[in-house]
């Protein structure tokens, strides 16, 4: 599977970021495994430590398995002064997990992130590819409830 994804891209180093994106996006657990790193290393003829270095540098990649829905709550100053800490506390309670952890049923992973550029609607979070703004504690409960029902 990893080899097939790699083969879509020319074997040059600048494609590393793209290959990592695609492998992570298509993996059911949204992460880059050790096997994937080995496969990429062979394909790009780069040492594994280079790939691991890049992988751990950027905040969008994960080296550990994650849930079906990845929640990324913004903690930058504009969201912070609009009460993102309260939203975080609420999320932790509803999900029963801490930051960087996945719920037992594997449905949600809770993460913090830097500015998402939707500050007009602070506080803001992204779940997978969707942005949710003007968050309140009630709204968060609703959103999570809906996603729970869906998956």
């Amino acid at each position, binding site marked *: 599977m990893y080899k097939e994804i790699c083969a879509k891209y020319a074997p040059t180093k600048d494609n590393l970021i793209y290959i990592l994106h695609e492998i992570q996006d298509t993996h059911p657990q949204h992460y880059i495994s050790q096997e994937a790193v080995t496969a990429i290393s062979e394909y790009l003829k780069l040492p594994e430590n280079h790939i691991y270095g890049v992988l751990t540098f950027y905040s969008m*990649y994960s080296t550990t398995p994650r849930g079906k829905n990845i929640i990324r709550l913004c903690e930058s*100053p504009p969201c912070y002064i609009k009460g993102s800490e309260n939203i975080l506390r609420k999320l932790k309670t509803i999900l029963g997990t801490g930051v960087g952890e996945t719920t037992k049923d594997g449905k949600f992973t809770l993460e913090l992130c830097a*500015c998402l*550029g939707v*500050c*007009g*609607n602070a506080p803001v979070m992204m779940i997978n590819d969707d942005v949710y703004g003007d968050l309140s504690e009630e709204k968060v409960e609703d959103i999570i409830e809906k996603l729970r029902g869906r998956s």
Partner: protein
Amino acid sequence: MKYYRSHVLVGINETSVAAGVQSFVRALRAELSKAGLSEEINLLETGPLGFFGKGICLTVYPENVNYENLKEEHIPELVQEHFLKGRPVASLMLESAGKFSPKLNYSKRIVLRNSGIIDPESIDDYIGTGGYEAWEKALTQMEPKQIIEEVKNSGLRGRGGAGFPAGVKWSFTAPLQAEQKYVVVNADEGEPGTFKDRLIMEGDPHQLLEGIMICARAIGATKSYIYIRGEYKLCIHRLQKAIDDCRNYGIIGTNIFESGFDLDIEIKIGAGAYVCGEETALIESLEGNRGHPRWKPPFPGVKGLWQAPTVVNNVETLANVPFIISKGADEYKKYGTPECTGTKVYTILGDVAYPGLCEVDMGTTLRTIINDYAGGMKKGFKFKAALVGGAAGMILSERLLDVKMDLASLNQYSAVLGSGAILVMNEHQSIVDMLWSILRFFRHESCGKCSPCKTGTQQLYRLITKLKKGDGTMDDVELMLTIADTMQQTSFCALGQSPIMAIRSAIDNFRDEFIAITQK
């Protein structure tokens, strides 16, 4: 061309998408067709409108009525009352919400002049407003030297934060002999509170492309990369459509307009690192490495992407270029101040009545921006401070509300213009708390390449946390200044050199608050 009685513009951007605008548009279309109005009313999906209402917003022409925060249940009323009978629904109008009509300021706009007016996904719309005339002029009637002279004369300075004159930057790269040169666009907007580049790209992607083309011709580059953050899905979609349309129209490609000039533009997606806004770190990231900044010199203009001469410019900077070439530097200089020409796009956030965006002359005061473009403070709140320029910016107090916002004037107060973010705080909010949030951000985003920044950001966070808890002393405050000062002098790149600005401005402008919290 078809004529319509009325044009209804729907703002499609990350904000309205979050509010469910897509299904709203489908429902509105259905309702219009049910009322037999499909041939009379043109429903146009456009970029961010000229104002920044909540949720789903509409502008209706020719009457120029703005609606905000619309829900699907409002559609029947809107169609019946306004579109059928011509009576705007006052209760849903933006103006009625706070008796405030935002200045739309279209006559004074450069980079946002089409935003909210044309369909950003239609190349014909852009061409219809005079788009790509500047590109044709630059390619067929001007020598690269003339282009650079014109941009130099215009006084255009980089809009990414540092404010380096764009024409001068180009003039370093243009004369170099190289097999390949590049134009790299910095669209990795990560400064907290800043989303002006997103609005420019969502509202008028072709204008950015035209700026890239002119820059490429001026320096002799045949390849350009737009480095954009992965979260900006709508921008990526619109830019890709714009690039594809340009290729189909022969506006980019090989032997453009039979001039013998080739150019290709490609989008590259980032992976989430604030430091990649630094131009050499951005280049490292493009090459497939960790985003660590490089030693300068050599500057990217001489040795950049894959060691080839590379000009790196911010989105807003390049979006100014088509205007300069088509209208001329003298016309451009009519905007702004003599030392700092042109306009600036700001995003205004926090406790103002209407958080939003505006494009105003360089040198407009903070007070004017807040009062005229954001409706003043939110009801019941008093102004306390504004964080200007994001985390790498300054915390300004009321004393500085009347300082002209341009690079030269702000410099006198050792302040910077930065990215164009204005975050307004009310009298109940704590400066120490704000600074804590900023320093937590820097601690997280330090790339770890150089010790002053790696260790310094950790120590600053430790000290501010201590202060926030009420365990700190004024010695800790002084120590923070010393550390940040050392970082400014010794850090490898702008990231480590930045925290001093927020810290010093916070302590200078709000010393009482620090004294109070240390005496708790």
